[in-house]
């Protein structure tokens, strides 16, 4: 029996009918059509599917779509403002914080959520912030450097 899901994704309101068991990640990728959010394990252990739900980082493979009812979701597609990349996105580019890029949307969402919650994290807190995200390519340090650069104010928010 499908139920109605009303929520916002990247500021845009949606009303969609979904099965009770449908996962948030499935709605985002298959119904809303935002394929930036990836899946690496579907069991809440790799972080590739991380999105922000009301400002908090969640693994969208372990959230039922209907649990997102009434919330605001931000995905990687929602980070840039128009044609301006977010500070973290620009820092990721400069620091080579991605290789194959499959973990990158999740990494960006985890670190964006971290900075929303704690704008001045220590290095250890940054590492903790992305510890739920696996990256098989970069070895994490380039990601930590990018986040650190943003914390230091080297990248200004686009107006």
């Amino acid at each position: 029996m499908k139920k109605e899901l009303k929520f916002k994704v990247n500021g845009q309101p949606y009303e969609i009918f979904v099965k009770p068991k449908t996962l948030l990640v499935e709605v985002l990728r298959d119904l809303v059509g935002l394929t930036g959010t990836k899946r690496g394990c579907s069991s809440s252990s790799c972080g590739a599917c991380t999105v922000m739900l009301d400002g908090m980082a969640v693994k969208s493979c372990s959230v039922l779509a209907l649990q997102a009812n009434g919330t605001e979701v931000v995905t990687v597609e929602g980070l840039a403002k128009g044609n301006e990349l977010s500070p973290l996105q620009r820092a990721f580019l400069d620091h080579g914080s991605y290789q194959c890029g499959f973990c990158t949307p999740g990494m960006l969402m985890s670190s964006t959520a971290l900075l929303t919650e704690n704008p001045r994290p220590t290095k250890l807190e940054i590492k903790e912030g992305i510890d739920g995200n696996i990256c098989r390519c970069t070895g994490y340090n380039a990601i930590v450097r990018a986040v650190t650069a943003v914390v230091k104010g080297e990248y200004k928010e686009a107006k």
Partner: protein
Amino acid sequence: MSDYSVIGKRVHNIDGTEKVTGSGKYTFDVVLPNMLYGKILRSPHPHAKILKIDTRRAKRLVGVKAVVTGKDTLGRKQGIWRRFPELCDEEILCRAKVRYIGDAVAAVAAIDEDTAEEALDLIDVEYEPLPAVFDPMDAIKEDAPQIHEGVELNININRHIEWGDVDEAFEKCDHIREDKFKCSSQAHVCMETHDAVASFGHNGKLEVWTSSQSSYYIQRLYADMLDMNESDIRVTNRHTGGGFGSKFELDSAQFCAAILSQKLCQPVKIVLTREEEFTATKRRTPMYYFLKLGAKKDGTMLAKEVRVITEGGAYTAMGATALYLTGFFSSFPYKYPNYRYDGYRVYTNTATTSAMRGFGAPQSTFVGESQIDMMAEDLGIDPVEIRRKNGMTPNYEVPGQAFIQSCGLHQCLDKIEEHIEKRGKLPPNHGIGVSAYGFMSGGIFNWFNTPYAFSAAVVRINIDGKVDVYTGTCDMGQGSNTTLAMICAEELGVRLEDVRMFSGDTGICPPDLGAWGSRQTLMGGNAVKMAAAECKQQLIEFTAAKMGVNIVYDLDIKDRWVHLVDRPERGVSYFDIVKEAIRGKDGVAIMGRGHYTPHRKGMISPAYSFGVQAAEVEVDPETGRYKLVNVTTAHESGTVINPVGIEGQLEGAIMMAGGYGFCEDQPMDEGKILNPSIADYKLIRSLDMPETDILEIDTYEPEGPFGAKEAGEGLTNPTAGAIGNAVYKAVGVRIYDLPITPEKVFKALKEKEKQQKKAKK
């Protein structure tokens, strides 16, 4: 060096913005009109006869469009060693027999994944379980079950490498060590699992989107398995979410999707689950290693004898190459005057073992670098010193095997020695371990039997001066497209943003063997450079004629400026010249072709890179737990084309190779992998990741484009050995089998305590 205008600069990867915005399309994201979803049924038995497969119930399920089994295939067997038919031994969809837990027996296409999954439960397979064997030492026994028809003792292949007179040399040694080691398996854990969208049209042509390291291999293997012309098959790879050696053989997702699509003439998408990825794709080869090393008192190593038996798993795959390379790289990076290697690869009823980043060399480097430290200690010589004494030097010939031109090993050793000295006296329970390595820049062997050049590229200059590069190389995240675009821009004298890459699409790109064995920078790079040079030549000829310059002058292009070499201010804009040149050629775009095939470059590779790594650990002697504190690597890879790329390769390699030494493992019970999930398969996460420092050494490789060579795969070799040596330095226990877990360290510490107590009494 620094008069390069593109090479060596810190740039964004050319696909960077797609990756940080989530707009890059992976196979995982591909959706086609009328597309179906596939799932694969796999054997629960490690070894069994297939008596009967009844698909009727599954076919009746609403939403199921097709169910296929081995009977729907031509019954051919694939193998990457196409020149050796007996080594092509994998049906992919098994017809009569399954050989490991995970072997595919049937596949379903349905309107969605859930329906396909449900249908799998409705397929009835009757098996007759057969006795199985899991350890190679058991598999070679006379009474062991035979896994492949006609292959007695399950010996898949053996390899022998020898030079000098080993037996005689051992007699001249002052000290000889014999040691045994065991190297574990490792999973690639690409973040994008194996996947494919196959679309067979009514016109008899097949199009495939797939996550792969070599579109050309996949195309050719499809052609073999489906009995098609390779030109009727188009394999495309846009972005690939990691490869690490796991994605250049035809896999079950690719093959089953094609078979299903062929039946239905509808696109079929198959994405392996993470569990399938762990249990039913290939993995790093576990090896039993027996080493004998002989040296003079002064540390000169005279002879080495190596014996290896590897757990092959169910099929040959790339395992034969891993067997060969582990034998060859067991001699690296030292000048053994006498050397002998015997390696055996044995079939077992376990998941197939094959290529993984390092390709046999991480194993040989772990065991070799552990043993050389023990030898140094026996002789009372410093570990760096013994490596210096025996290390390879430029223009060295590995007798009868390979010729090494550039080699910066000694500079690397100096840098690491400095680093250790600078670190000074270490806190208690800290230790620094050293490990040296070398690696190849692309393999020379052609067991795949390609009739084409090893690498090829086409460069086209459009009317607006923008440049398109077509290459069969594959960017799986290692950044080869950026590196090749930089090479093209430098050669042609334009900027990086002028270059657009088209890669890994067999429909439009010239064939290239793809991304494995660290071949893209050197081989793909040489091909691109040659193609770019051909374009440049055409522009320069045109400019010379147009400017009417004296014939003794040379012209060049730099940063979009075509000019006289001796008087750079005299020139014309590159863009203007392109426009005019194309007009002058009756509107034909300017094109160049390039290719590279190594001839007379030894048996392994045209070039080798070297490095030395120092790992610092802190061990808790109470528990055996330890922390990776810092990993510093001195490294040479010829001219550095893309420095950001190299840093990334280095740090990423430490995550993977450190994991191999530190925690990654695939324990099994009766052929069943016990930890097939990311939650249970322990790998290095951000909190475990050590500080990493890189000390780049300048070298120049004459065989490489602009002097460049391998830069990413070799870095997987040294870390496990460095960790082992560091743990020994810290607390005095030596671990002989990977991974070096806290439990093993703890046990060894207890054992050592016992021995010491005994000695006191």
